[in-house]
């Protein structure tokens, strides 16, 4: 039972992969556009931060689900 719970929690945390890919793509594009237009770096980084925060939310939901699985099914 414990091992199944651990497996479930591990699968829930896999949501982090999506967030990682998303943030990676967003950051690479932001770096590209700052290199192309250094004067717009302020606006680019603030919208990058917004996108990263939204992409990261999925990873956090995965974490919360994993914690709930560990605590409630233990």
């Amino acid at each position, binding site marked *: 039972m414990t091992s199944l719970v651990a497996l479930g929690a591990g699968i829930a945390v896999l949501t982090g992969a999506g967030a990682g890919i998303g943030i990676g793509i967003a950051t690479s594009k932001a770096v590209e556009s700052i290199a192309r237009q250094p004067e717009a770096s302020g606006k680019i980084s*603030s919208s990058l*931060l917004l996108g990263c925060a939204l992409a*990261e*939310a999925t990873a*956090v939901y995965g*974490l919360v689900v994993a914690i709930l699985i*560990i605590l409630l099914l233990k």
Partner: protein
Amino acid sequence: MDAFVEKLVDGLNEELECETVFSIPLGNGHSIPVFESVVVTWIIIVALIVISKLLVRNLTIDHVSKKQLALESGIGFLRNFFEDALGEHGVRYMPYLMTVILYIGVANVIGLFGFKPPTKDMNVTIALSLMSIILIEYAGIYKKGVKGWIKGFAQPVAIVAPINVLEIFIRPLSLCMRLFGNVLGAFVVMELIKLCIPVGVPTVFSLYFDIFDGLIQAYVFVFLTSLFINEATE
């Protein structure tokens, strides 16, 4: 291995539960419990008030001291940031947002001083996000009037109205879970690192998880709130 899991689960449970420091008796057998997060929040309030009182003493126009210069550049940075994010109609909500960024920033890094961060208690993040969504909707009603606010749900086309109504509930939920999940997640990762390698390595990671991540989350929270206010008042 089982001992490890036991220890982790105990640690998690301890962090998720809010400890009651003392109770205020009401007389009829009931009492109001006062949680640890509330007490730590009081400590933060007192510390912030004392620090701001000390910082604004002896401000002058000429012969500016180093302290005043640092204060002015800090406030100037925050003011520029909020003016950009809030837009021209939202500037009147700036003092509230500055208070919130100071509070969350201090609350996230207060773990370094041996206190339990209040933001690790979900009640605190729920309260903060409820305050945010009430302010966002109030800003919309204040700017456009009740009719305009209701009409705003049917923008840009009437068919998206259900999604716009759902957003009232999704926004605070996401703000609350983001702050709570990040603080708790950072804590869990730090505990795991401490269990594996107790010496040296945790210090390096603590720089990222305790200081950088905490400040970034404070920034993201107020940034998203001010963007939503900007959107609501447009």
